């Protein structure tokens, strides 16, 4: 189990979500979500598939808009930002997609350099190359710089996806199912990488997962989502002592596994 990060600043909230609702037609996905993420904290959002976990982080980064409620990121209300302000905010928030979402017409190096060049017109080629080397080194894939995404394994794609978000030096990381579809060894490597990113880049994170091992190894605190709202929040041990049926079946299933 992960040791709680001693550098968490409980006085500084970087993401604050209050009374958040979101529906898609008749499907009520989020039904009154409240969540605080403190500076330096890794918060794991655990829940079954289709409970609205990914929708939650897409709202945080402004890819979706809530029906009601507020989402404040680094002190700014996301739903009230204009496109320029949203772009500024997004540079502070890294988003690692479940599918990695690498640009498949570009090499790994170009994938990493792309957001950097787009957001900094004056950056020199040498600086770009140096930054690419740094983030590739951070995810342990320096040798992959000239490879195409199609040539990478699932775990390598996840790492490159994380590296691409790190290149903009975000303060916040959002991981959508970082270990989905990976074998246990690769999953452990990704979990270690998430912790390494937290230590080395001093990021605060939300990790969306249904993998209890991932939750245990990466979370400073855990929030369990059921039917569009949180039914338990706190440290791993605290949460899994509660009597909720979903939490107990999660625990038993993973124990059997």
């Amino acid at each position, binding site marked *: 189990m992960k040791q709680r990060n001693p550098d968490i600043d409980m006085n500084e909230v970087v993401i604050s979500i209050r009374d958040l609702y979101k529906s898609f037609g008749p499907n*009520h996905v989020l039904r009154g979500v409240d969540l605080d993420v403190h500076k330096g904290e890794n918060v794991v959002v655990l829940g079954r598939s289709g409970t609205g976990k990914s929708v939650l982080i897409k709202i945080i980064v402004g890819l979706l808009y809530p029906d*009601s409620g507020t989402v404040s990121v680094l002190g700014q209300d996301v739903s009230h930002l204009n496109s320029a302000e949203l772009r500024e905010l997004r540079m502070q928030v890294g988003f690692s997609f479940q599918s990695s979402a690498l640009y498949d017409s570009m090499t790994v190096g170009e994938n990493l350099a*792309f957001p950097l060049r*787009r957001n900094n017109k004056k950056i020199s080629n040498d600086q770009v190359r140096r930054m690419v080397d740094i983030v590739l080194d951070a995810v342990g894939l320096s040798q992959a710089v000239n490879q195409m995404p199609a040539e990478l394994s699932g775990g390598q794609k996840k790492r490159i996806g994380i590296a691409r978000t790190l290149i*903009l030096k975000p303060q916040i990381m959002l991981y959508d199912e970082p270990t989905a579809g990976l074998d246990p060894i690769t999953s452990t490597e990704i979990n270690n990488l998430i912790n390494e990113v937290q230590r080395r880049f001093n990021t605060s994170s939300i990790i969306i997962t249904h993998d209890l091992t991932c939750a245990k190894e990466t979370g400073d605190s855990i929030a369990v989502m059921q039917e569009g709202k949180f039914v338990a929040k706190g440290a791993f041990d605290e949460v899994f002592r509660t009597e909720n049926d979903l939490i107990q079946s999660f625990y038993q299933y993973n124990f059997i596994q």
Partner: protein
Amino acid sequence: MDSSNGQPDKPLITAGIDAFFLGVYNTWTFVARFFRELCRLPFERREFVRQCYQVGYKSLALISLTGFITGLVFTKQSRPSLSEFGATSWLPSLVAIAIIRALAPLVTALICAGKVGSSIGAELGSMKVTEQIDAMEVSAINPFKYLVVTRVLATTVCLPILMAYTALVGLMGSYLDVHLNEQLSITTFFLKAFNDITFLDFAASTFKAMAYGFTIGIVSCYQGYHATQGTQGVGKAANTSVVISMFLIFIEEVIIVQVVNSLR
């Protein structure tokens, strides 16, 4: 606050009519956004040049073959009718009018709708369903400007150039047949061909090609950008791009011909 009662929203008229008007509204906002983003700096020069290469240069082989055969076959088909009246000397002029006024813009547009439209629809559709467009968005990159504006601009700029090339290659095809049958020199052929061609013919064809290019670009980008349902959605985006582009091209052809004829 969440106020709906869990029942599906009732359509205003019928589900089909609602969907049609919603589609028209979405298309209109997409086109309006294109012009808004077009006027905003920075201009994506490198991506625009890359798209011009994809749309223009990579279509040359197919365009050359189609244009050449169109000119050749049109000449061959027209000869028997003209020779009945002893008017084969009018062939260069007839073919030039047909090619420059109608065939070159239309053939170029239909070839590009099939080749370029399906390619753009599939590429953007695939990027959409694999979350690559979302990835650009969250990396503080404007995907609309990078992906849509450059592609629509490339098709709009390249179609008139391809159309001029098709016309030239088509006339060469026609010349080959005329030369083999009437032993006409190339200079005489082209002098006769351009004898009845006016500035309005060139201007109208260029405008038509630009309109077709814009249509192919915007329709394909819209279909790709709004693709859903995984790989099935990508196929649907590619297919719909071609079908709608061709449909609109024919409608535009009819309208532009009416307008141009009223100007003659």
